[in-house]
């Protein structure tokens, strides 16, 4: 797993919208781009500019993905039959960290769920023995979402 190098919510201001819909986003207070020149007029985006922005937004939304890893999702999405953009979303949503976030085990995409070392669902772990990597893909139904929070409610 790579280390996040940028301020978490900077992307909200860069994109000009609150991409996780969080009430704490700095975009709610400062509705302009980050940095010294953030308040300058924005020029008209080129085709490349809009594509780049769309890519950065999707990549940034998942929080912990490096460009290299994200690109590999694109390669895989292109390889699969059917609509590549749908496959891309499908691949991203089956990441373990995305699943944990969607299941509301963590408040933001940047947090990782506390996971018990010896899980009761040994037989339902994914085939590899290192099931705790964020980017690890899950297959629907087959692999269970193990994760568990050390005694929720206790």
């Amino acid at each position, binding site marked *: 797993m790579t280390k996040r190098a940028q301020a978490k919510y900077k992307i909200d201001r860069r994109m000009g919208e609150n991409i996780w819909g969080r009430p704490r986003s700095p975009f709610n207070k400062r509705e302009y781009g980050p940095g010294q020149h953030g308040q300058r007029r924005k020029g008209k985006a080129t085709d490349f500019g809009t594509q780049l922005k769309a890519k950065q937004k999707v990549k940034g939304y998942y929080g912990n993905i490096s460009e290299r890893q994200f690109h590999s999702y694109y390669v895989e999405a292109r390889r699969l039959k059917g609509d590549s*953009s749908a496959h891309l979303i499908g691949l991203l949503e089956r990441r373990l960290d995305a699943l944990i976030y969607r299941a509301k085990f963590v408040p933001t995409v940047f947090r990782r769920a506390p996971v018990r070392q010896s899980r009761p669902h040994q037989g339902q772990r994914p085939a590899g023995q290192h099931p705790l990597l964020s980017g690890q893909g899950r297959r629907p139904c087959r692999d269970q979402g193990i994760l568990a929070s050390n005694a929720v409610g206790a």
Partner: protein
Amino acid sequence: MPLVLEANALAERDVPDYIDVDHAKGTAKLTRVPGLSEVPYPTHMEPNLVIEFYSR
């Protein structure tokens, strides 16, 4: 775990249909791979532009 309880209490998001969660047991299960329209993005995502970006 306080973190989990805190996350759970957040009202700003709902667990989407394609995930089965049992918060009492602390398990979650991806029941199927979702399409773009099923994923609850708070903003408008354009994966088609992402594909275009890489295919240039």
